[in-house]
């Protein structure tokens, strides 16, 4: 019989320690969201759940005033984040699949010029053009609107490149057959290209939804009213300077709710997600 040697156990130990390092902060936050703010504020948070969970989540969800201050209701912030994330993900997919279709299946003057114009956006992340972009959005009257939150982030070179790459693998015979059957470009797009792109669209959706949900700097700038607050920026505003006398129970419940949608998407759609990530970045 083969004995279990110490050397065989080492990888498990390392992996388990790794898993714990990532799980521990989440565990603490989950536990914290079930206690009262006084217990957390004194630093005496136990390692087991308390009895305030339901009350904390209900209070955070409805935005009732905590012991220290009143906050934007989590349901409002979650809805704002959801609208922003969906608009960014679906908007990016829609405009890039159309432009990739144009570049891949048509020959027209200035084709490469347009391709490069889109390509350049890769080099201009929102962070480096932040102030002038803010000014453009302000001039268009889009401060504190969903359009202002989403549209400046939806042009994406990576999605366009991914779709173009994929379209180039569609065999010529398919296009030929469609043409013989009398299908025009619009028919071909709806009946052939869209169904074939399903997996790519799903994979991209997962990545872009998380990208949209996790936006920070941009929502921080373009929203100033509480009812347009997104949840990720909302948490840091609740924390303020991080003194011990915060409504930590509500902050932790809000953090749990903020993590839930993107983590659920990653765990439930793991295969698509990994495919989407590895494909779109390479």
């Amino acid at each position, binding site marked *: 019989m083969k004995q279990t040697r110490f050397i065989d156990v080492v990888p*498990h130990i*390392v*992996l388990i320690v*790794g898993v714990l*390092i*990532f*799980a521990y*902060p*989440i565990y*603490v936050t989950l536990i*914290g969201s079930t206690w009262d703010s006084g217990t957390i504020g004194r*630093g005496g*948070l136990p390692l087991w759940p308390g009895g305030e969970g339901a009350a904390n989540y209900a209070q955070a969800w409805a935005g009732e005033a905590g012991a220290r201050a009143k906050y934007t209701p989590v349901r409002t912030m979650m809805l704002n984040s959801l609208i922003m994330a969906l608009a960014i993900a679906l908007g990016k997919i829609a*405009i890039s699949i*159309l*432009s990739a279709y*144009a570049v891949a*299946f*048509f020959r027209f003057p200035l084709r490469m010029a347009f391709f490069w*114009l*889109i390509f350049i956006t*890769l*080099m*201009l992340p929102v*962070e*480096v*053009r*932040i102030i*002038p*972009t803010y*000014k*453009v*959005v302000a001039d268009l009257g889009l401060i504190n609107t969903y359009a202002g939150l989403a*549209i*400046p982030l*939806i*042009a994406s070179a990576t999605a366009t490149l991914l779709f173009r790459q994929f379209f180039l693998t569609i065999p010529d015979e398919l296009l030929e057959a469609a043409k013989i059957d009398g299908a*025009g*470009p*619009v028919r071909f797009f709806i009946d052939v290209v869209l169904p074939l792109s399903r997996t790519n669209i799903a994979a991209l959706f997962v990545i872009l939804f998380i990208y949209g949900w*996790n936006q*920070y*700097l941009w929502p921080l700038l373009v929203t100033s009213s509480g009812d347009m607050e997104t949840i*990720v920026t909302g*948490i*840091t505003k609740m*924390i303020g300077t*991080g003194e011990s006398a915060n409504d930590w129970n509500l902050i932790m419940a809000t*953090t749990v709710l*903020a*993590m839930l949608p*993107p*983590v659920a*998407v*990653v*765990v439930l759609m*793991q295969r698509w997600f*990994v495919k989407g*990530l*590895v494909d779109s970045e390479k």
Partner: protein
Amino acid sequence: MTFDSRLLPYLLLAPQVAVTLVFFIWPAAQAVWQSVHLQDAFGIRSEFVWFENFEHVLTDPNYLDTLKVTVIFSVAVTVLSMGTALLLAVLADSKIKGARAYKTLLIWPYALAPAVAAVLWMFIFNPDIGSFGRALRALGYDWDYRLNGGQALWMVIMAASWKQVAYNFIFFLAGLQAIPRSVMEAASIDGAGPVRRFWTITFPLLSPTTFFLLVVDMVYAFFETFGTIHALTQGGPGKATETLIFRVYHDGVVNNDLGGSSAQSVILMVIVIALTAVQFRFIERKVHYA
């Protein structure tokens, strides 16, 4: 094989081109324009000043300090997150029981926002409410990242790296799975131990992935960690955790110095373009060899 149509391709391109022009090209051009102009206090008149704004920025000792913080921060985050991810990926890829479960449990932090990762770290290391923060103080160590610059830098580095490990892990795992098993088995038969196999076969064959991640992690550390820093330290105490992107935000939004902030934006653009160019040169080379 293509379709013939005069108008349709332009219509298909219109939405993306419109968004790109209005929200990318125009603002970027504005940043370049403002970076060579000086505006008066009321924002009515502006004067062309050549490279004066850049001169101010680049000779400002504060800016050079920020640059230093950014370099330390980015290198630390890149090395820490890549090293940890590579170790975990190599172990999870080996024929180990429960490999699938380990993978799922290590992938999910990708879903967390950088700012949320920072908040989670704060729950643990806050000197008043965090278990580790209080433990450090109980041990007699003067722990307070809100007052001590070195500790603050350590905090943002750890929180930013912690969040980025999952991303690196996913790509290292994909890279490892692309290495043919036969190569490893041959080395195994030749009597090479696991450590030797790693350094002579796995690591060199992973180099495309490693290089790709190096660029992505640098870009992450430069830009996306704004949320981490804003949520944890606000760039402080003093300017101990102020990175280049945080400074652009601070000078432009809080101090309302458009020229200076734009000059800094242009410097950042140059950095991104350089990083992207390096990445593409490399991809070209990879395609050439493949």
